[in-house]
């Protein structure tokens, strides 16, 4: 980490994001969520409340879930981050948690979904055989306004079973060839606002 003094002080941050080394010079007060979204253009991490309540910005820091809106980018220098973009296999096969959210209708508008998916990955790494009450409590730190949570809880339950069957670490990128879990294909055609990055041709 190198520090440049002055009014427009910027600090170089080096992190590993989804297994890829990334570096950027940022102001010391740059939030980790803004660093991911604006500097690295990883917009899958969403910001819903900016103060750690809603959980939409949840990512994994060295494998543990944190609220990226409550951390500064400089505070994670040298550490390893996993965002929702880092879960599916390279061939696009969904991670068991992602597939379960699809299967169980664990999303509607989808804004809270990346945060829930990351929270679930952290939770299932700690609690491999959760009962229904444990799942409910484990998912109670994230807000969803659309679903009433039943589909989300069912998804985490399904994912727990699939992960147990495969023995995979839920915090790692999905490796379809290594495990018994039969990956599910993705959707066929994205609708409005759908597939692809956020860049609008200007």
């Amino acid at each position, binding site marked *: 980490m190198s520090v440049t003094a002055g009014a427009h002080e910027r600090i170089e941050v080096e992190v590993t994001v989804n297994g890829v080394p990334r570096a950027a010079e940022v102001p010391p007060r740059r939030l980790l969520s803004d660093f991911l979204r604006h500097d690295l253009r990883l*917009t*899958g*991490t*969403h910001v*819903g*409340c*900016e*103060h750690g*309540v*809603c959980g*939409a910005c949840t990512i994994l820091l060295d494998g543990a879930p944190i609220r990226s809106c409550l951390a500064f980018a400089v505070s994670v220098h040298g550490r390893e981050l996993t*965002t*929702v*973009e880092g879960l599916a296999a390279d061939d696009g096969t*969904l991670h068991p948690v*992602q597939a379960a*959210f*699809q*299967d169980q*209708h664990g*999303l*509607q*508008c*989808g*804004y*809270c*979904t*990346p945060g829930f*998916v990351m929270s679930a990955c952290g939770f299932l790494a700690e609690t491999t055989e959760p009962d229904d*009450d444990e799942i*409910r*409590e484990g998912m*109670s*730190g*994230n*807000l969803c*306004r*659309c*679903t*009433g*949570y*039943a*589909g989300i*809880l069912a998804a985490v339950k399904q994912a727990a079973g699939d992960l147990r069957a495969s023995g995979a670490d839920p915090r790692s990128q999905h490796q379809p060839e290594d495990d018994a879990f039969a990956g599910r294909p*993705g*959707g*066929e*055609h*994205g*609708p*409005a*606002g*759908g*597939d*692809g*990055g*956020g*860049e*609008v041709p*200007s």
Partner: protein
Amino acid sequence: MSTGTEVRPGTRSGLGQSVRRPDGTPKVTGTFAFSSDLFARGMLWGRTLRSPHPAARIRSIDTSIAERMPGVASVLTARDVPGRPTYGLEHADQPVFASETVRFQGEPIAVVAAEHPELALRAVAAIEVDYEVVTPLTDAEAAIGAAPIHPDGNVFRHLHLRHGDLDAVGAVSVEGSYEVGMQDQAFLGPESGLAIPVDDGGVELFISTQWLHVDRDQVAACLGLPPERVHLTLSGIGGAFGAREDVSLQVHVCLLALRTGRPVKMLYSREESFHGHVHRHPARLWYRHHADPDGRLVKVEARIVLDGGAYASSSTAVIGNAVCFAAGPYRVPNADVDGWAVRTNNPPCGAMRGFGAVQVCFGHEAQMDRLAAALAMDPVELRLRNALAPGDELPTGQVITGTAPVREVIEAAMALEPPPLAATDPPADGTMDLPGGAGLTATRADVVRGTGLAVGFKNLMYSEGFDDASTANVRVELDHRGEPLATVHCAAAEVGQGFVTLAQQIVRSVLGVEQVALRPADTTIGSAGSTSASRQTWMSGGAVELACLAVAEALAERAGYGGGAPDEVLDLDVVELLREGPIDRTRAHHHPPTEPLDEDGQGDAHVSFAFAAHRAVVDVDPELGLVKVRHIATGQDVGRALNPQAVIGQIEGGIAQGLGLAVMEEMLLEDGRLRNPSFTDYLIPTALDMPPVTATLIEQPEPGAPFGAKGVGEPPTISSTPAIVAAIRAATGLELPRIPVRPEHIALAEA
């Protein structure tokens, strides 16, 4: 109108099946582009200056310091609005920027575009406004007769429904007053949009909204541009629930883009979002119910006052619904309902899931329980005895010609076996099920249990003579592999409800084409109307069906069938026929016409109705005032479940919002100021607050509805709230005339 298309049960991923969302993969992988995720090269960031005062006169606005700040590209105020200075969903009474008068806290005064969002924030802080603070008018009842705070007056709409014999009285009558607090839609994705200037002097706007075309028309009018030079494209929407029906930043961001000649993005913070969109109308209700000794309703009298806040928004429609549905889903031969929607200096209120029907349902269901008590009658039996049925007349004089399974939804909600919840049972191990949950505050021995039932209904689609038609285009062609590909183009806003899934299902079922793509929703096609009033399945689903049928007819013609035989298209060799070229058809879908209400609130004003009943089981610690909702059972009239998993998702999500209004959610106001604009202080239900839901779908196909389906989004939010409060009343014996019920209403209630 229904065209009577048969749904073929064998069709893979067609209607009637729990087909997965086509946007599921991008949403679970993080690649789905929400409006907040959009970036354009060279874009600026916009930010709004809002009034800190609910009521003030503006003496002067000085933007000179902000304008000189390096990196600030533009600062705009009311004098920079080239077109109409005001906008509004139904009445253009809301200024794009306040210039002389501030009418609510958070009203926009100016906008800034700068190179960085934080710089924009600093520039906003550098604008100097000299306010002469005025005492705000915050009492809705007082506003009716108070000096007008807007040139259009303080009454948005007064509707006095009179039906039957107004002098009729019942052997038994009960009276009650009720109050509903201000709820917020609290979608998770704050308002955002990206505007890009176009070479012809127009503008392109990527926006999360519920209704592209009505936004387009309002934006164009304020910009002083013809509508065809304002092009809107729907971007990913993080929930809506009514809060995205009104314009928020649309005009501001386009003004900044046109002024600077650069792309401009605006993105509200959570606090700004609470100030930047309309809320659910707070309500004061007074009721008197009359019944004969057998419990048959004789007359319902009501007075309803809705606080519409500073600007009209959809207040006229909300009070229309409140008056029409004030008596609930019951046979009421005589009615006298006086409804007001008024202007105050509180935040503007407008659409939220179940608009109008939610507020009155809290009143009429409390009254039905009160009446049952006065009659010493079972409240379920009282409701069944008065339940509306097909052929019955509403207090508006309209006869129900479609389905009305009120008895069925009540019986379904009551039939479900409650989980083993008797107060003496030790709850499942752990303390999460006790009131107060993880706080370990409640003592099991103190907990009392209550059960409550409530029933509600509302209209589907827009009412009172409004033709909210929808348009869809369906194109069928061979793809690069020679396989049939259908592409649907419709401007219906996908806000999470699953219209995108349904559109694909319809095409598969009607045309037998498995591969269905969806074009982005935008304003290059005709309006689809709003994603509100539970209307898109019926209206835009119907438009997609009509376009499919037109394609089928063209295919049949190609095959040599003279008159065209849509149903036979499934047996045609579509690949062979499409070798001649693509087929492309656009169709508009209108619902049957409705009438305006007359001066007595009478008329065939509504297209169709949907009903639901909820039974709630709650545990309460009366000493601490803590409530734990333990179970909700519901029966819902859905017409036909076109995607059962999606229907259940709407029901569970709608109940969560109803639970929020019952025991958690309120925008707290003090002299017109919002006290809790954050998710720390405005609490919405978490997974621990939501009980298990057991739902029974009542499937009676609605005549005239495409595929027989009714909209399902709003009914779960209407009667879940009063069911929960009825259960708390049953547990505590308290009257609880106000929602949300807070701990002090229970713990500090006078015996």
